[in-house]
């Protein structure tokens, strides 16, 4: 007749091994999970930009489109100031970005007087501050 005690010992050992396996499996999965989270967090300055920031980006990028390059006349000017024609391409996205911070249309008009340069510079300052915040948050998450 098999020793009951021995049987019990073998069984509990088996149980222990299974527990250990299960635990390490859980550990492995959770480690993998956190790794993939981390790699997702890297390079996400882009993905963390708000839609208004993305549109602001796109507006500046559009200055490189053939029809938006400086004309002969614009090239001949003796100033580095961006031409009004090209400034106008940046205004809608700039307004959108400023309004997304909770500023009202009325405040926007009052502060900029409808001036294109003031609108774009204000929006650029918001954009720079926001991308800096995103970068710092990502750094502290690592």
């Amino acid at each position, binding site marked *: 007749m098999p020793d009951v005690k021995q049987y019990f010992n073998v069984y509990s050992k088996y149980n222990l091994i299974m527990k250990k396996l299960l635990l390490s499996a859980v550990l492995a999965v959770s480690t993998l999970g956190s790794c993939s989270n981390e790699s997702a967090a890297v390079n996400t*300055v882009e993905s963390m930009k708000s839609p208004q920031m993305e549109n602001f*980006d796109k507006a*500046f*990028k559009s*200055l*490189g489109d053939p029809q938006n*390059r*400086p004309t002969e006349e*614009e*090239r001949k000017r*003796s100033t*580095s*100031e*961006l031409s009004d024609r090209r*400034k106008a391409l940046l205004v809608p996205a700039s307004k959108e970005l400023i309004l997304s911070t909770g500023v009202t249309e009325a405040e926007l008009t009052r502060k900029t007087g409808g*001036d294109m*340069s*003031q609108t*774009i*510079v204000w929006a*650029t*300052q918001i954009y*720079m501050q926001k*991308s*800096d915040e995103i*970068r710092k948050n990502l750094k502290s998450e690592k």
Partner: protein
Amino acid sequence: MKKISLLLSALAGVLSFAQSSALFVENYSIYNAVGRLRTGMPGGAAGPYMFAAPNPPFGSYTVPAGNSTQYNTFDTSGTVALPIVKWYVGDATNPANNGTFAYNDPFITSVMNPSNEWGGFHFWLVDPSTNNTVDSYELGDPTIYPGFSPSLTGSVSSADWFIISTPTGAITYMLIF
């Protein structure tokens, strides 16, 4: 206490708004922009100028493909996305100023911040996978660096350098397409 800190932060806000031009950099191209980012005296006057030291891991100052960064002032350039931790200063009018300075060195704050403006970027566009140069540019403000141009078109790319100015301050933009 609260009032004082409020006052201080309001003051800081006013002061930071009064700062001279910030530089906004976007490289939309698929190539690395490698070269010398320069500051200089307004109008090309004689005096100190400087250019950016390499940003690690690059051997020269580089704006990698698809990257962007911003510099508010010369003496805060070491804490941004593409940091400039050192400036190489040259000064024919006072050779004692020649040398390498940490971005936050008091000399940069007291001498370079008030005297210099963003001048230009003399750079090569390099294919990051083959290391081949595809275009080269002297992009910048011709009143500071004669021979530099604010708007250029290369063989596979183009680039813009411009300012947008307001009564309370200006921002300089450098865009590579």
